[in-house]
């Protein structure tokens, strides 16, 4: 944490730096504040006041209406996200374990092929994937979305674990092997207990990705099986009736809260995942 500043005294330039940083804090917060304020206003309040005016009456009607519209989709998102996160993380851990400690001829090539998946524009697989889901009878189901998220999440989850395990000394595993420990015993007894940080990173990364997904949701689901992001988009972009901005904003908050909460609680792992996933990937 050493800094480049000469001495942290009070000088004009330091005041300027703080001013810029604080101004930026305010600017970054504006959208969130506006969303919250609007969500607690009544429609009349919205039309008479402005974005940052305080609600004349704090009203929960926007939240009640929003929840009444999106609650089913919120549960869909949970039904999709939880299994998809757990399965893709588990497979990623095993893949990473093999790719770092049980390499075989061709495993490196496979890793290279997999890495490309981190960059894959999903538009190039949407049609075949939807044909396949249709053939499997999983079109427009939450199970189908779990499946798709697991498949296209593998690149990142494997990358996380592989890069983490590659730094564990070989000697540890070799010694265990000589003692007769097998593939799964070593994984369970030695590798898994030291994996907590990377498991956290991976869980949080996958949770954010899958919860926030829109593309797969809008292509592979319809009606009752849609995730919250699709429901939110439908709500906000329907042109029937008068626009209820308080409901829109409350629904946006509902869609955003789970990932925001995770970010507040486990921000450290979130940032680590972003940089590991992004820089290496």
């Amino acid at each position: 944490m050493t800094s480049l500043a000469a001495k942290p005294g009070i000088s004009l330039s330091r005041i300027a730096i703080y001013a810029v940083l604080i101004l930026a804090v305010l600017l970054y917060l504006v959208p969130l504040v506006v969303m919250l304020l609007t969500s607690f206003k009544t429609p009349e309040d919205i039309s008479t006041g402005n974005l940052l005016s305080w609600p004349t009456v704090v009203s929960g009607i926007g939240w009640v209406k929003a929840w009444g519209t999106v609650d089913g989709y919120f549960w869909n998102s949970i039904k999709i996200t939880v299994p998809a996160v757990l399965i893709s993380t588990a497979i990623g851990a095993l893949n990473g374990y093999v790719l770092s400690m049980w390499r075989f001829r061709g495993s490196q090539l496979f890793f290279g092929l997999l890495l490309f998946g981190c960059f894959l524009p999903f538009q190039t697989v949407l049609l075949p994937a939807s044909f396949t889901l249709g053939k499997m009878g999983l079109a427009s189901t939450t199970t189908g979305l779990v499946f798709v998220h697991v498949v296209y999440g593998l690149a990142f989850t494997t990358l996380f674990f592989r890069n983490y395990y590659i730094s564990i000394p070989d000697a540890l595993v070799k010694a265990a092997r000589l003692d007769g420990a097998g593939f799964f015993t070593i994984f369970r007894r030695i590798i898994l207990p030291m994996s907590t940080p990377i498991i956290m990173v991976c869980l949080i990364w996958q949770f954010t990705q899958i919860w926030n997904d829109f593309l797969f949701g809008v292509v592979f689901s319809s009606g009752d099986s849609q995730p919250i992001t699709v429901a939110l988009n439908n709500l906000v972009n329907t042109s029937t009736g008068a626009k209820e901005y308080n409901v829109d904003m409350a629904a946006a908050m509902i869609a955003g809260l789970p990932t925001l909460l995770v970010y507040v609680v486990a921000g450290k792992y979130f940032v680590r995942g972003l940089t590991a996933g992004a820089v290496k990937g």
Partner: protein
Amino acid sequence: MSSVAVFSKASPFDALQRWLPKLVLAPSMFIVLVGFYGYILWTFVLSFTTSTFLPNYTWAGLAQYARLFDNDRWWVASKNLALFGGMFIGITLVIGVLLAVFLDQRIRREGFIRTIYLYPMALSMIVTGTAWKWLLNPGMGLDKLLRDWGWEGFRLDWLIDPDRVVYCLVIAAVWQASGFIMAMFLAGLRGVDQSIIRAAQIDGASMPRIYWKVVLPSLRPVFFSAVMILAHIAIKSFDLVAAMTAGGPGYSSDLPAMFMYSFTFSRGQMGMGSASAILMLGAILAIIVPYLYSELRTKRHD
């Protein structure tokens, strides 16, 4: 590689142990080969067929690509991508670097400030788009706010202005991604060798000059990664357009990802949609292949 085999007699257990890693990896290998590469190939094939609402495999040669290039909307989407991508990458980098450098000056409450800068990255682009659509609402959003605050002549109606709507996308995307770029550069700055800076200070160089001439040039790899990530986000941008403008007014804010979606899934133009997807893949490859190449080359030198 498996040295165990040398020491132990080959029992069924050992044989199983030797095959286990391959067995464990096999499903993923299958998924990657089929679900990644097989599907890309499939889409590639579809882009050479006359497929419309349903896939068919009547050979059409390059007809779909020709139609794509004759399609005004595709050109609008491509030009928008260049404009959106260029501005998004440029502005995000400038803001990210600036905030990182400022935050690196022994700032009180640095952790708190960082948390605020980065939180938009946790949100879905749909949530971001919804929020900014409201903020940029002509007549009710910032437009009205600044007039209420006394700036009488203020007008902000970019969201319904076909010539300026792309800027709305840029604003929202910069808001979402700049904190992340800040975090990347801050991590990079923390790794810079302090002795170089002290030496420059002793030589009498001013801090802005030291940053400009010494520190930032040493962060070239971070710049590369950042540009690549941002370009990648720009090319894939779909959710933001869907939530904020749905490509409108008209199709003035269309991006290739949006184009691909609407032609493939709403308009029953599977062949042309596939062709546009393949061109998107080409754009991504054009960015990552040089990047991966330089990454691998430097790794080898280490």
